């Protein structure tokens, strides 16, 4: 495993896009962790004397509020900084939830085959037949709006990707000799599935996890924008955009900045995902 990660990083270092992605992800991670220290103001502090102030470098701006304020006089920079906490944890939660569930279902489907496989695949077909946001909307409509429900909804939508990837990989792996050897030694099915086979399915899983991060962040932000995700006063970038819509003519900075943050973070995970795929692909071919 250690060697695997070492080789992987060596391959990644050659890919400029992936390195840019990693650097941006690290920076946003640092921003998110140190948010209470670096944010100049309390992100939810309403300030009735400084409503919709432009950024400090444009006319009319105040030097107290570097990126200006929103419609309630809250400091935009601080809200954006705290927003990175929300977005990164949302991405992480979505990936963890969908990865664990999807991997579990995928391993079982690929290993046992038959009726179990058919039922699981039908279920994923069903989820995939609905557009992701639409399905998430249905779930949120049932559970009610809120950031946790949005995360649950987006995770459910992301499960089929993992199921399919893992299932295909397990179906190849289960016919290999090391699996027969493990069987001869009397290993339980559980052991064969999760301790023998699963570690050999890591490569596509890592790629999908990285892409799942960006999908998760994007979809939860979209739900926030539609008013179905994070609720006020939480500093979530999608929700901030939705609040800013009515002020697009008078206070454009309220619109441009949160969206730019979403774009940059999503882009960095996509860059990393692409790089990982390129790095892991030749290895995959060699293995087979």
């Amino acid at each position, binding site marked *: 495993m250690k060697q695997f990660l070492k080789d992987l990083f060596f391959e990644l270092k050659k890919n400029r896009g992936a390195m840019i992605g990693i650097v941006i992800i690290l920076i946003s991670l640092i921003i998110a962790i140190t948010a209470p220290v670096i944010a100049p103001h309390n992100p939810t502090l309403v300030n009735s004397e400084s409503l919709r102030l432009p950024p400090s470098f444009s006319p009319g701006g105040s030097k107290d509020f570097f990126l200006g304020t929103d419609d309630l006089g809250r400091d935009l920079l601080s809200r954006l900084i705290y927003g990175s906490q929300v977005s990164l944890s949302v991405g992480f939660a979505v990936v963890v939830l969908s990865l664990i569930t999807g991997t579990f279902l995928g391993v079982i489907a690929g290993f046992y085959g038959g009726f179990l496989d058919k039922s699981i695949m039908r279920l994923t*077909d069903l989820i995939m*037949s*609905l*557009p992701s946001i639409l399905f998430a909307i*249905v779930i949120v409509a049932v559970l009610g709006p809120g950031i946790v429900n949005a995360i649950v909804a987006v995770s459910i939508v992301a499960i089929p990707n993992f199921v399919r990837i893992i299932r295909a990989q397990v179906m190849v792996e289960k016919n290999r000799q090391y699996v027969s050897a493990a069987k001869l030694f009397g290993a339980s099915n559980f052991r064969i599935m999760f301790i023998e086979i699963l570690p050999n399915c890591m490569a596509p899983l890592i790629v999908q996890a990285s892409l799942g991060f*960006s999908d998760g962040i994007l979809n939860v*932000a979209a739900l926030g924008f539609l008013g179905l995700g994070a609720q006020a006063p939480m500093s979530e970038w999608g929700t901030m*955009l939705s609040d800013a819509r009515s002020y697009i003519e008078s206070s454009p900075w309220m619109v441009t900045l949160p969206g730019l943050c979403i774009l940059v973070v999503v882009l960095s995970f996509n860059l990393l995902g692409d790089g990982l795929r390129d790095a892991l692909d030749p290895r995959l071919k060699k293995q087979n």
Partner: protein
Amino acid sequence: MKYISKKLLDLIPTLLGITLVCFFMIRLIPGDPVLNLIGERGADPIKYLEMKKSLGLDKSITQQFVVYIKSIFSGDIGTSIISNNSVWSEFIERFPATLELGMVGLIGATILGIPMGIFAAIKRNSFFDYFLMSVSLVGYSMPIFWWGLILILLFSVKMGITPVSGRIDFIYDIPTYTGLYLIDTLRPAVVSVEGLKPFWSALQHLILPATALGTIPLAVIARMTRSSMLEVLNEDYIRTAKAKGMSRKRIIYIHALRNALIPIITTLALLFGSIITGAILTETIFSWPGIGKWLVQSITARDYPVIQGGVLIISFIIVLTNIMVDIIYFLLNPKMRN
């Protein structure tokens, strides 16, 4: 034939599943659905029972499902609580708007994306290739609800070239014929009275939302075309064609592109679903009176029958399109027939 009938048989459990999801959706809402629908306050007992009966909630769950399936087969997918119109008639009224938006977005993305992908593949590793692929990765990562707002900010607020919302200026009253304004405004009856002005107005209203909606498909198509072309260009028959001394143009456009198109067509069809997702967001931003805006509004208004019926129709459409694509793909690709 065997393949097609198998595909059609596979359809049954999926459609049944969607129906089940829609059926249980309204019943899984925490608390009493009837109270949810008419509001906690002012729920007088008679109205309560009436509502319960009209939703069929006074019967057992299996009976309810039988009734639900029966009513779907008879064409009744519910009635809006807000407007009291049937969900189907509300859908039909708004579908052309979404169809027009989606078609223009997707066609635009195809017309631009395929040549871009081909060009990037031919000039592999050139500056243009890197530039195009970087731009398309940005496009692919774009939160379109933000992109739409940025387009409004640039073209409507700053430059004042395009309108901010709606499908056409209010002064024009276009009789609906197809429901697609770009076509309806060109009918002789309209052109003879108003000239081409209504058409321009419809086009101006359409251009921004279609751009916003078409961005992600454009990025996907360009990337897909590039990788598909690169793969094909490495095939033996291309080397043979080169060895035979064929012109470069002929090799690229006749030999390579035709084979590269198969995965591209599949991608196009799969984009259909993402167009609907995009429409939900785009229509909300541009106040485009289509099914996306309709669904979002019904969620805010808690108009559950509309959400239930709307989701049912949309997912049926998507599933049926995907099956059609599978069949076309099968007919196009001789390799699949064995």
